[in-house]
């Protein structure tokens, strides 16, 4: 099988390339990358990418596929279909399933499901502690041998600093990065949204930015002590961005991500998205997420962190929930929103607004996650996997949750008009999604 993607502009930050190139995929890999017209078309399937941007397959390094255990919200099959539809050729799935992915058998099950039904590559993240209870360490060597590419107690952060120190040290032993969900659970208490003016008006319990920042600082210090590779998940506050910026200037091996909702929405989205939402609040549970949507000031700082390179990765934190968890009182509703099918469109706003060049965005969504997790891919060099995302930078489209491939519909962007999306996704040289 030989496939030629011709006429497009190839954007590959790993090669510092952003120029017209034809891309040849053979046997699931990149076989050639040449100036337009150099690769003969005869005997090959040709896809015309004129006017489009041909990028290394996008990688969403923070998603929840919910399988095993909560298949009514999402499965490996539906989640990876959503990934492909959203332009992602690979996802890293968090271990907070039921049972928790804290042992090789669960990891193997997830990978078997992915091999059977997966539209995108699946890279499991193993648990840091058994049952993510923050007490006993998991068998990191076994998890790595089974296929885990990182460790995390996402959603149930390790509160005991000694356990976290040992986990970081033990992870270093097996050369696995640790992904920290930085949140002080005591300080969060029973908060349900960002602590600020909107929470005070709505009478909802607040989660202060400090609940994230104190743990960002703790984990950076502990990773330094342990000599471990630390990646901070879903940063949402100005303080977190500032702490990471300082740590990087000091030369520490820390990386971090944010999610599209943190640079797109603010805590006002909880009241609603209309002009008079603060006066007639709707208490939108689709805007309930952890960490919570923050203030305008925080959002601006996150955007600045993306622009100046402090933030390494955009990941969606795709967190499917059914109406059972969302069609309830705000305080009762589950935290989380889905992002695989809106992440590219929302992130491209940064390009259109001049915050980032497209090549930087591809680095944030492909090159960097591949490097941090040590994955194949993230580039279109000859010999790399044939994972490709083709982006139409200017195509307008309307977010419609009813068309989503995900099983869930908990998305606060329904009805938004966005400019630009992935129109073709190839995994291992095979088309897994193509826009009509």
């Amino acid at each position, binding site marked *: 099988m030989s496939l030629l993607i011709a006429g497009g502009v190839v954007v590959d930050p790993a090669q510092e390339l952003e120029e017209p190139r034809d891309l040849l995929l053979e046997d699931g890999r990149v076989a050639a990358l040449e100036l337009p017209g150099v690769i003969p078309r005869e005997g090959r399937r040709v896809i015309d990418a004129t006017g489009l941007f041909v990028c290394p397959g996008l990688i969403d390094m923070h998603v929840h596929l919910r399988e095993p255990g909560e298949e009514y919200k999402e499965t490996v099959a539906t989640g990876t279909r959503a990934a492909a539809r959203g332009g992602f050729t690979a996802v890293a799935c968090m271990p907070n399933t039921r049972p928790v992915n804290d042992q090789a058998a669960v990891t193997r099950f997830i990978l078997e499901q992915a091999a059977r039904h997966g539209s995108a590559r699946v890279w499991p993240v193993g648990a840091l502690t058994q049952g993510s209870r923050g007490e006993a360490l998991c068998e990191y060597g076994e998890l790595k041998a089974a296929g885990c590419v990182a460790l995390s107690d996402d959603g149930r952060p390790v509160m005991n600093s000694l356990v976290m120190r040992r986990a970081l040290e033990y992870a270093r032993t097996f050369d696995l990065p640790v992904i920290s969900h930085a949140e002080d659970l005591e300080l969060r208490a029973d908060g349900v949204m960002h602590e600020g*003016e909107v929470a005070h008006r709505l009478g909802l319990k607040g989660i202060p930015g400090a609940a994230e920042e104190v743990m960002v600082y703790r984990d950076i210090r502990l990773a330094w002590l342990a000599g471990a590779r630390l990646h901070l998940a879903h940063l949402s506050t100005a303080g977190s961005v500032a702490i990471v910026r300082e740590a990087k200037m000091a030369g520490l091996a820390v990386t971090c991500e944010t999610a599209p909702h943190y640079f797109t929405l603010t805590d006002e989205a909880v009241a609603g998205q209309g002009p008079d939402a603060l006066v*007639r609040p709707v208490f939108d549970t689709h805007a309930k997420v952890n960490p919570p949507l923050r203030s305008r000031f925080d959002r601006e700082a996150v955007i600045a962190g993306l622009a100046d390179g402090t933030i390494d990765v955009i990941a969606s934190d795709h967190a499917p929930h059914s109406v059972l968890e969302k069609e309830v009182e*705000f305080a009762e509703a589950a935290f989380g929103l889905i992002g695989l099918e809106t992440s590219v469109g929302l992130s491209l706003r940064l390009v259109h607004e001049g915050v980032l060049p497209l090549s930087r965005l591809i680095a944030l969504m492909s090159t960097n996650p591949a490097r941090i997790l040590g994955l194949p891919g993230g580039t279109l060099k000859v010999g790399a996997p044939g994972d490709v995302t083709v982006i139409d930078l200017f195509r307008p489209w309307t977010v419609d949750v009813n068309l989503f491939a995900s099983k869930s519909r908990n998305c606060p962007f329904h009805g938004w008009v966005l400019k630009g999306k992935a129109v073709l996704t190839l995994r291992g040289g095979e088309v897994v999604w193509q826009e009509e």
Partner: protein
Amino acid sequence: MRLKRKDLLGLADLTPEEITLILDTAASLKEISTRPIKKVPTLRGKTVVTLFYEPSTRTRMSFEIATKRLSADTVNLTVAASSAVKGETLADTAANLEAMNPDLLVIRHQASGAPHFLARRLACGVINAGDGTHEHPTQALLDLLTVREAKGTLSGLKVAIVGDILHSRVARSNVHGFLKMGSEVWLAGPATMLPPGLAALGARLTTSLREALTGADVVMMLRLQLERMGQHFFSTLREYSRTYGLNPDTLAWAKEDAIVMHPGPLNRGVEIDPAVADGPRSVILEQVANGVAVRMAVLLLLSGGE
């Protein structure tokens, strides 16, 4: 004469004109409660459901009496546990209520926003009788009526609200109400229970009781929930009372003709000294009486009765 709205969810979105209409209507209805036969046929044939997910004595009784005095049929449902515990979701409860076709639903719920959740799903009017720590609009309206009666106006006053502002739906609704009507609102309490976000509405915040009370026309004391002590919001009742309690000495900082209010129930000797609560400047029982009139007005105006 009716409100051009389906629901009464809070004071945040009421206009000063709507507030005045409700207060004027309540003032005219007060007389009914002094008649030997305290009943008018205005809402005959209308069905009002009261749904209380939180314990309440005075608000529930006040709504019930208001409904009966207007001759509406009432059904009172008190749900002990939260919806999550008892198994039926609030959405299902709403669907079931809808099927019985009531005209108005009065709801109290421990979750902020629960009445808004129901109002979006129900064709009938929804009256918020207190949602979590968000709003308690009929309480604020009865407070406004009480102040208007005592002071003859709602503009140009200094209103001091003292206590656990953070958890108080009464405070939030009153902040909206008094600011809209042209008065100044001071919020006083320990920093642990003083949400700075309310300053954005135009309220003044202070940790000093004296600053809040100095020159005040209206002093509104909030009930201190005793369980807040275990949640680290304050140290001891003794210190709270000495720092934020209203007694004859601290009341002396306010204007000579200042009135004293409290939404009840009282923690006598904690936030309010009995000498003040039962003193000549207390309007606490007038608040209760006005509660019936205000709720009659709201029921009437939302159901389009004449």
